[in-house]
């Protein structure tokens, strides 16, 4: 049987990567319990939240690991790979040192598409989604362009290491400027272009996940995600409002 410290390390690393990649807390707790049981540890307590993970193994002489979750971003390929790994472990628990290495490889694996493609797919998703919230076909191109500019703003924000809220504020303002330009020169309508600009940033998924977590009884997770969503939407809206005010439209 593998030592508790090693198994704890496997469980904590897998959980940390899952949470960092945007997996739901209930599923994370489920997967980690199964990994611990695969190694013969049935006394396991797991408490996962979007910002931290706590794992305890053993009942009388127990060991605990705490991991802080930073830099959350949805990465479905990692969730998929860890899930596959956990299935393999349930069938045949490999030596922990090998598994740790496998988890590190998953953390470092290259995304399925090259990095330059992501801004393009973001922009396409934003423009297509704008059509669904009431944009007309002639707004598709302007909405796409506005989104590209907004993503550019976020890149600058990242390289300057400013807080995310600053980027969201600037994004809201950028979307308004793009929309003003698009209505003047491209004949687009104002609101859909603003919506398209910020579409990928509005935290709809976070809102929904927050309510779902609350329903499932994961209240800490619900509060964390809900607050994250409120902060984000407030920053975006203040950016838009500030730009509207500055251009005399408010």
């Amino acid at each position: 049987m593998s030592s508790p410290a090693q198994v704890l390390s496997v469980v904590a690393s897998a959980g940390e990567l899952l949470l960092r990649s945007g997996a739901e807390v209930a599923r994370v707790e489920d997967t980690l319990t199964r990994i611990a049981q695969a190694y013969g540890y049935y006394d396991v307590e797991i408490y996962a939240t979007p910002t931290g993970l706590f794992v305890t193994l053993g009942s009388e002489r127990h060991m605990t690991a705490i991991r802080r979750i930073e830099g959350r971003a949805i990465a479905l390929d990692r969730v998929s790979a860890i899930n596959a790994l956990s299935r393999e472990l349930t069938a045949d628990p490999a030596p922990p040192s090998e598994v740790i290495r496998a988890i590190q490889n998953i953390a470092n694996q290259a995304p399925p598409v090259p990095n330059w493609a992501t801004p393009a797919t973001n922009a396409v998703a934003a423009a297509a989604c704008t059509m669904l919230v009431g944009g007309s076909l002639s707004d598709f191109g302007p909405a796409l362009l506005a989104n590209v500019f907004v993503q550019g703003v976020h890149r600058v924000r990242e390289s300057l290491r400013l807080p995310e809220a600053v980027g969201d504020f600037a994004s809201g303002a950028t979307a308004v400027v793009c929309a003003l330009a698009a209505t003047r020169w491209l004949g687009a309508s104002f609101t859909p272009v603003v919506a398209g600009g910020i579409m990928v940033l509005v935290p709809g998924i976070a809102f929904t996940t927050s309510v779902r977590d609350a329903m499932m009884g994961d209240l800490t997770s619900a509060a964390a995600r809900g607050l994250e969503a409120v902060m984000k939407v407030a920053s975006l809206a203040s950016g838009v409002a500030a730009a509207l005010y500055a251009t005399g439209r408010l």
Partner: protein
Amino acid sequence: MLNYLFAFLTSAAIAISFRGPLRAVPASGLAGLLGWAGYDIPVRLGLPATLGAFIGALVVGVAGELLARRLREPTLMFVVPGLFPLVPGIIAYRGMLNLAQGDYVAAAEELTRTLFYAGALAAGLSLPPAFLRRRR
């Protein structure tokens, strides 16, 4: 009708943005298309948008469970992109904008709507796993 194509496109594109494994991307798009149909058809028949959101999310949840089983991917791969066309981000944003403009009545209306809409989505999404997932 064109909107169904845009729903597919939204979900497929966002699946790629979220680093989804490429072989599962068309299925994510499909989940988005089906979810949109689940929302759009009831709304066109005159039912309230919140009910449409519930049915749409229910469809996304069922599609997610079935696709996940078939393609051996986590449900997240289909549920997150599939839900994307339905999420209430824009209503929430309009509510916040109303707040910034000092129109508190409109803000209260939009933000309350967001809450109920998100609740409907979450409820719809929570049901399929409860019924379709094998208990161990």
